[in-house]
């Protein structure tokens, strides 16, 4: 506890002195940024919100709030309906485990309204952004960590541009190519385990990655400490390493679960093994870092340390799948500007167009292939008919049998030959 107070005092001193360089270089410890009071001050700085950006975002917030009050939500942003539905079912475990010192005594209904507005304002502030399920969990963390809605807005805005933009395109491809990095990292560290993991598409990691772990890890404190590690390192690549670290850290448990399920279903068709792998991998985080975990904080710290080691020993740029990451992805370009967001949107648009062309081209080839087959069939048919007629009508002439019927066939035969 003494260490906790020391770290807290030191961090407060750094923040009071506005010593940004020292804050950014603050060594990571097992308590992260200690508490929400420090986080509220430190996170925006670590995300790069300086004085200039702060005043720009204040203005943007004010302007958007005016629009918000004048328009109905569905005119305000196209995704309002989906956002509303997800906000309605927020405020579960993550909220229940939060210290939430700003919001004590406030009704959940009121918080839901504020969460809805927060998400909508950020979506509006970033042109071409698309809402995705899981973003509402991220936004809830932003809402709970700040004492006023404008601060939540500024924080979520920067977080979105810097750490989430790949997931906010109109399609999911930029996210999917990121997930492929996870088995690639495992391959470099533990080949045997990789053989199990690579059997399935890494979609099991989707919800953790797009929600920055808020959808899977239900303990507010654990998520806060993980976010501390990401922001203190100022590293948008870290979530991928954190996920790989989680897999490696809980490997024994995963293998045990797989063995158990496969044993109990000994008589079941083993073709479904792939589904079982997917299912176990989809559940292992929730299972191991549940709100009932006795020492989750300690485990989270060890996982974070492991992710730092992974990052050092397996640089992303050395991985095969890194080539498929978009140029303007936050994994390749750490700038969190609107311009980069737009460039990524353009890049994704080009990808979509290319896919569309490929699809059309594929359909054309298929159609041509079908045409070719039909043409060949007709040609072969005509050829065979020609041979039959040739043989048949040579004989009648030879034997002096000439009927109108035969003449008609001869004409047909000749016209087909001419045609060919």
């Amino acid at each position, binding site marked *: 506890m003494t260490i906790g107070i020391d770290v807290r005092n030191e961090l407060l001193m750094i923040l009071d002195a506005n010593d940004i360089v020292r804050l950014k270089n603050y060594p990571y410890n097992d308590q992260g940024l200690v508490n929400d009071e420090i986080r509220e001050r430190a996170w925006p700085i670590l995300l790069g919100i300086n004085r200039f950006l702060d005043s720009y975002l204040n203005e943007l917030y004010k302007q958007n709030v005016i629009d918000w009050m004048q328009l109905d939500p569905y005119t305000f942003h196209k995704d309002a309906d*989906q956002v509303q*539905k*997800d906000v*309605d*079912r927020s405020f*579960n475990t993550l909220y229940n485990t939060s210290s939430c010192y700003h919001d004590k005594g406030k009704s959940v209904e009121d918080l839901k309204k504020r969460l809805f507005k927060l998400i909508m304002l950020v979506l509006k502030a970033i042109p071409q952004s*698309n809402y*995705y*399920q*899981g973003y*509402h*969990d991220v936004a809830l963390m932003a809402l709970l960590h700040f004492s006023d809605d404008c601060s939540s807005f500024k924080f979520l805005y920067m977080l979105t541009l810097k750490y989430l933009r790949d997931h906010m395109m*109109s*399609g*999911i491809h930029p996210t999917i190519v990121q997930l492929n990095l996870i088995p690639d990292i495992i391959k470099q560290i533990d080949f045997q385990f990789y053989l199990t993991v690579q059997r*399935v*598409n890494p*979609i*099991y990691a*989707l*919800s953790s990655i*797009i*929600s920055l772990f808020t*959808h899977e890890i239900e303990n507010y404190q654990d998520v806060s400490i993980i976010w501390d590690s990401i922001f203190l390192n100022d590293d948008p690549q870290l979530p991928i390493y954190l996920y790989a670290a989680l897999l490696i850290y809980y490997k024994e448990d995963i293998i045990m679960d797989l063995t158990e399920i496969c044993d109990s*279903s000994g*008589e*079941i*068709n083993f*073709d*479904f093994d792939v*589904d079982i792998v*997917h*299912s176990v991998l*989809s*559940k292992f985080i929730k299972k191991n870092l549940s709100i009932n975990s006795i020492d989750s904080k300690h485990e989270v710290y060890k996982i974070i340390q492991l992710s730092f080691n992974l990052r050092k020993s397996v640089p992303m740029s050395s991985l095969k799948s890194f080539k498929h990451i978009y140029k303007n992805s936050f994994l390749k370009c750490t700038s969190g500007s609107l311009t980069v967001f737009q460039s990524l949107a353009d890049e994704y648009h080009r990808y979509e167009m290319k896919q569309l062309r490929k699809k059309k081209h594929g359909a054309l080839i298929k159609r041509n292939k079908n045409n070719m087959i039909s043409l060949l069939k007709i040609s072969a048919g005509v050829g065979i008919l020609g041979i039959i007629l040739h043989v048949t009508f040579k004989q009648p002439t030879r034997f002096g049998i000439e009927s109108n019927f035969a003449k008609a066939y001869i004409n047909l035969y000749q016209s087909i030959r001419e045609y060919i």
Partner: protein
Amino acid sequence: MAGQKKTLLKVIILGDTEVGKTSLMQQFINGKFSQQYKATIGADFLPKDMIIDDKNITMQIWDTAGQERFQSLGVAFYRGSDCCVLVYDVTNLKSFENLTSWRDEFLIQANIKDPDNFPFIIIGNKIDLEEGKRLISTKKAQALSNSLGNLPYFETSAKESVNIDQAFEVVARCALKQEEIMEFNDDYTDAVNINVDDDNYNNCAC
């Protein structure tokens, strides 16, 4: 039933966001309902053991994400499905109108070889909500079920556990029938006319 071979049946639940896919699955498997279910991202399944006509089966029920942007992921999960449950919310018109596109997308992504005979079940959920909120009548839903090939249709309430077991029993029967047809096809790939004894499946409308 010791020693008897267990048949594994794969069932996919599809439908728009917040129609109650997770609730239906939870109610059927665990017999409980909660207002606290989080949005489903990606897909995952829960198993359920059943006995249908003295056959031991395990149903692997896949709960999926409803948001459209996640639809393209289906190709990773749908393969090998034996039945697909299409769910809509009786108070949400759009969720009803989207049923056909959910079905079409499923057929493409699951790469179903005989689309006309693949078993689908339609479920209209949330009938516990007050009558005034209801936007899709039984008649309208029945008409859609008929137009899509006389699909079995159920109206349920996952909240109050109405019609859940009945609906999933039909799901199980349809899935079992489909699994047996697929096995038969695998065994006799030359067979053109598949002769299935209808009497054994008289409870299944598909």
